[in-house]
């Protein structure tokens, strides 16, 4: 089911995300101490090019990675094939990409 192109896309996005996940986990453990607030989150992210790039790259990689993962599960477990499989995979990836970029915009745009 996975050919070499999908495999490479899956592994490259995984490698890209590994340091991003470590950063994300570190920020979460740091930020959750003393309770979260919307203001605290936005103070960190608003107007920051660095966070925009960090989360922008994260969203892009996660959308591709998750779309391929969902594709494998849909095929292997649910037996979905052909056009339906492509639509499901591409649709899920597009949903994550659009929602994810919107979320990044929401927290970084001043």
């Amino acid at each position, binding site marked *: 089911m996975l050919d*070499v*192109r999908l495999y490479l896309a899956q592994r490259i996005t995984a490698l890209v995300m590994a340091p991003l996940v470590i950063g994300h986990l570190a920020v979460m453990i740091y930020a959750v101490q003393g309770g979260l607030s919307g203001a605290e989150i936005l103070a960190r992210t608003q107007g920051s090019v660095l966070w925009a790039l960090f989360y922008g790259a994260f969203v892009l990689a996660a959308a591709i990675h998750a779309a391929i993962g969902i594709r494998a599960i849909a095929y*292997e477990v649910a037996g979905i094939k052909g056009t339906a499989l492509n639509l499901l995979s591409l649709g899920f990836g597009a949903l994550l990409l659009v929602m994810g970029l919107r979320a990044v915009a929401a927290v970084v745009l001043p």
Partner: protein
Amino acid sequence: MASTETIDVEIWQGDANGGAYRAYAVPAQRSQTILDVVTWVQQNAEPDLTYRFACRVGMCGSCAMTVNGKPRWTCRTHVSKAGDGPLRIAPLRNLPVIKDLVCDMTEFFDKWVGAGGVFKPSTTRDDPIPAIDPSTVERAAASEAIECINCAICYSACDAVAQNDGYFGPAALNRSWSLINDIRDAGRTERLSAAAGTGGCFNCHSQQGCASHCPNLLNPTLSIAGLKRAAVKAKVRGEI
């Protein structure tokens, strides 16, 4: 050693349309193998019980069956090693049943060929035989992947095969990897193209069910990981 003790055995019987387990009490013997048990049932209780075996010494790979849920070579599996409770003997998983314990191996061997399992010579019989240095990396890798007896135990243990009709499976890809490392072979490109395709090595999830069940202690997951690297390299270089 005659004994009055018996083993409770359930043997699946049927065909492609379905079947059921039937129970037998088989006299216990010392050093008794699963194949001995099946043979006793066929000779004493169920004359039309259908099963396959040949060498009885772990060479031919024809007697694999599912024993208490695990694929095993029955000629070299002692009853005492098969676990507690009644013995449940069934045909291999992931292959169509012909009758009782006999599976149709056609797809297994078709995939062997499809994955590029047939040696393609780079020289003719008139050329000198190439010398293979036993200390090379390629020869060491090939050595780890040979000794496969085509018993289909790995194929039967593999969930990727169960979930994906087109997947070549561990045995065929392991064979492909042994040929990739054979310096006399001329079929590298076709083989890597097959490995990189939709039935190929990228369907493997590295669960290592193949390696944990292989009676000859081969590790097809290792071979498939090698194929993944080789196929990625070939793709990046534009060779496939």
